[in-house]
């Protein structure tokens, strides 16, 4: 069980007392955890939606301060390019009574992780760790690469060729690391 559940439970208990409800749409490492995949996680949850209510924001911050984790629940992922029909595939969880928790489907997690690996593999390798844990198939890797090519290709031709070439190299690298 993730220690993040402790913070979420505290938030849920408070929401219940206040008769509030919030929605959280989760991606990233905590989403992997919700899929039952055990991985080393940092104590932060990436959400796609923004919390608006000032008292809820204040409570989230207060809980974070208590544990030394002021940014434990953040919507920095808002604005991320998502796979098509992402919201049709999200999975709902009834883990908490007053937090409408949903998280990215497996295939969408894979697509987002492949894209994340492309952008940050030169300085950050955690996305590779997560892809290994997902034990992705060859077909799923191809889907991830297709998503990257379809949604991230630059419009200008002078950048397009370099991008496609780099993605091809990444594809080969990931094939080697993940599929052997």
């Amino acid at each position, binding site marked *: 069980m993730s*220690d993040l559940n*402790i913070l979420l439970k505290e938030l849920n208990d408070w929401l219940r007392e206040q008769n509030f409800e919030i929605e959280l749409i989760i991606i990233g490492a905590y989403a992997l955890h919700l899929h039952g995949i055990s*991985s*080393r*996680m*940092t*104590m*932060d949850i990436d959400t796609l939606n923004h919390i608006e209510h000032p008292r809820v924001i204040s409570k989230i911050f207060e809980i974070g*301060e208590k*544990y*030394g*984790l*002021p*940014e434990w629940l953040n919507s920095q992922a808002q604005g991320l390019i998502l796979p098509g029909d992402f919201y049709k595939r999200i999975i709902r969880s009834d883990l908490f009574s007053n937090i409408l928790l949903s998280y990215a489907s497996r295939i969408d997690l894979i697509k987002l992780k492949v894209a994340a690996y492309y952008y*940050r593999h*030169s*300085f*950050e*390798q*955690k996305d*590779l*760790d997560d892809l290994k844990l997902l034990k992705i198939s060859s077909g799923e890797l191809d889907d991830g690469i297709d998503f990257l090519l379809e949604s991230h290709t630059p419009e200008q031709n002078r950048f397009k060729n370099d991008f496609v070439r780099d993605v091809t190299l990444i594809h080969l690298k990931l094939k080697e690391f993940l599929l052997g």
Partner: protein
Amino acid sequence: MDSFIQKFNYLGAALGISPRMKNFVDLEEFFLEATLHIENDNRMKQAILNWCARYATLLSPSKIRRLCSLIKHNDENLEVIVHFLIERSYVKHNWSILVKRKIKTRINFHENFKKYLKSNDFIIKNVSEIRYRAEGRSQVISDILSFTQKSNFGSLYQLAKGIHSPRNRVNESFRQLQAFGVI
């Protein structure tokens, strides 16, 4: 591994909630132990490097050197981490006593204290081992204060052993702290 993670979370890693640590945690011993775990996975690696980047300046390289013969660690990883810390000026050049040869390190490091570590305010408030050092106290005095707040000891010899420090220095520092009513 679990005991390492528990210590690491106590010392400020954002890989879990900070547990209550009843016993003194020796920072230099922890640093050496970290060399055994740095290659476990990439989040662990980044968390260790970020912790070192922020707090290694509070550690004593001479104590680390002394502990090398007592504490299990990975020599190669130790050299790489020390080179990394010196090259990026996270520590001073006196740390070069810990390396045998000059190597050019290529290390994937992503400085992101907010992601990999708990807030500095929280760590300073809750981790006495780090707080006393951050307040400018010497390694021996910091460790004596932290150790004596958490553990009983029968003799100054036991105290010296508990904080892995030379007996004469521990005697002198302890008497000073006693003389001024600090302990």
